[in-house]
């Protein structure tokens, strides 16, 4: 397929692939096994200007859009979803500043994010607030020129490794979700510590941990947007990033498909390579068709966002749900085609399968995505009836 990439988009894709092949593939199994954070790869991505891809040129980035970010994420995800999660979660953490920051906040934080000198993390989820994000209990109480944060964020990607955190907390408990606000919190602020580091089924090269705020005082100027707009900040950020999770799905699906095709053409049973059997061909055909369809959807949505679309919750959720369900299905089938070999750690597909599962869960479960899509369809019907 030709997606008509321009010269710079092709360049971004090629460079991301080169980093994946030379810096990620040789070490991915070891990072997964030992649950090691990929410092060397982060350094290589930083030197290659990859962290500045979506940051405007005036803040030291390359000024590209969602589409270019998706191209890079897809190539990294094909090699290792754990590492691409570190990279994509960084974008997730940066979007609140990019979308809602004042010029001063952008000037202060974006340049060091663009160079990769500082990693970012996004903190919304809590023990009692997952799919029901409105149920957060972390509070931010204004005290003179400061806010005092109290509470615990859970399962935060890049937690502990990031230097900058965008945090959603309640400034008015009585208003629930409408009382939420978004803040920038820097690592090292007194009262801000890290809880337990999670042990995970997949994406084990990425770090996931608790953020603990205990009378943590931050300057009032670290408020993003306005008090009470935190939930909006979070939702707009997630709309933006979901298509990126979709591109993670496309990447890992392609990775699984490539491994399965390669294996099936080498593996001989009943005197023939197993790729010559219709049973295998039909599986590969479904895997290939779904992966390509997911890619076409993700690319279209990313280009739609970059074209200046105002409301893209529905299509962004569609890209996420379709591409990540595809990723799960394709990686499970890749293991099936490779049989016993696929189940062993000698081949990368068992890792791909373990890794892929998170895509259906994080940044809004695929059930929540369907809620978003469904509600949008329902609203459109109501609007059309009125109009």
């Amino acid at each position: 397929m030709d997606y008509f990439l321009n010269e710079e988009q092709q360049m971004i894709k090629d460079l991301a692939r080169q980093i994946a092949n030379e810096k990620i593939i040789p070490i991915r199994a070891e990072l997964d096994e030992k649950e090691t954070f990929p410092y060397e790869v982060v350094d290589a991505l930083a030197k290659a200007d990859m962290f500045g891809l979506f940051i405007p040129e005036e803040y030291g980035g390359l000024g590209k859009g969602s589409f270019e970010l998706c191209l890079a994420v897809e190539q990294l995800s094909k090699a290792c979803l754990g590492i691409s999660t570190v990279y994509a979660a960084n974008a997730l953490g940066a979007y609140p500043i990019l979308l809602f920051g004042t010029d001063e906040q952008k000037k202060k934080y974006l340049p060091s994010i663009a160079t990769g000198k500082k990693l970012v993390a996004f903190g919304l989820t809590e023990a009692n607030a997952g799919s029901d994000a409105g149920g957060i209990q972390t509070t931010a109480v204004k005290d003179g020129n400061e806010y005092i944060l109290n509470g615990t964020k859970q399962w935060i990607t890049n937690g502990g490794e990031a230097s900058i955190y965008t945090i959603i907390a309640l400034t008015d408990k009585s208003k629930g979700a409408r009382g939420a606000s978004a803040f920038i919190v820097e690592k090292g602020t007194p009262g801000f510590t890290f809880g337990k580091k999670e042990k995970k089924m997949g994406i084990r090269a990425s770090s996931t941990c608790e953020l603990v705020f205990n009378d943590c005082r931050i300057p009032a100027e670290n408020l993003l947007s306005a008090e009470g707009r935190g939930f909006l900040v979070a939702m707009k950020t997630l709309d933006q990033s979901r298509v990126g999770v979709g591109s993670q799905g496309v990447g890992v699906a392609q990775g699984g498909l490539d491994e399965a095709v390669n294996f099936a053409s080498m593996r001989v049973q009943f005197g023939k390579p197993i790729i010559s059997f219709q049973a295998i061909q039909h599986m590969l055909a479904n895997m290939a068709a779904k992966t390509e369809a997911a890619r076409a959807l993700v690319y279209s949505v990313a280009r739609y966002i970059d074209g200046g679309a105002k409301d893209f919750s529905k299509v962004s959720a569609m890209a996420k749900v379709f591409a990540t369900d595809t990723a799960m299905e394709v990686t499970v089938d890749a293991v099936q085609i490779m049989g016993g070999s696929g189940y062993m750690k000698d081949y990368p597909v068992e890792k791909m399968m373990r890794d892929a599962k998170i895509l259906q869960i994080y940044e809004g479960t695929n059930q929540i995505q369907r809620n978003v899509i469904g509600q949008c369809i329902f609203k459109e019907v109501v609007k059309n009836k009125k109009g």
Partner: protein
Amino acid sequence: MNIVVCVKQVPDTAEVKIDPKTNTLIRDGVPSIINPYDMHAIEAALEIKEKIGGTVTVLTMGPPQAETALRDAISLGADEAVLLSDRAFAGSDTWATAYTLAGAIKKIGFDIIICGKQAIDGDTAQVGPGIAEFLNIPHVAFVSKIKDITEQTLTLDRMMDDRYEIVEADMPVLFTVVKEINVPRLPSLKGKIKAKKIEIKKMTNAEIGLDVESLGLSGSPTQVKNIFAPDIVKDRKMLEGGVEEQVNQLMSVLKELKCV
């Protein structure tokens, strides 16, 4: 601080085949790359620049298509690129090549000159030291580590067959590097965008003004008479019989060959 890196575009030898009739390299369809040792020279230059500042200029002598090697070097972070290309340079051996490069480097201006220890096609390791001789400056070959660098002096580890030497050299100086010195970086996006747009400076002998008799084929004291691939002799003898019998046979063969 002017840092000049000499690079050579070479065929990717992992892909090269030899035409059995003409005994020359089949270059059609073989990708060209920057000589791998020169990649380490570029990395060394970029690291020096990051440490003490300066400008990194990459220089190559070759046909017009060698421009792609220079653009690759720009994408890694080099500031300027110069392509030395003239029909008069064709057929240069290592003497004429070093003479020509030295002439160009004089024009460019230099404090430090870095070369890969040798090219993977010619494998002579003569051009780097040759340039230093023509410029009448010190050179340090086979550098495996830059131990220290100040505004005037470099302290270098030099890798010999059986030992390291620690050499201190005042600038201007030329050194050649071995692959142990560093891990070459990958290109950056900003570098790649710059590499697409940058105008490569082209230099002919008209700008350098060297003695034409000393250039190219006529200026080369050595000339290639013949190239051939060595015959590969595969002499194979299968031993047969029981284990003891085979061991005895093997021992007598080894004794015959004076291996034991």
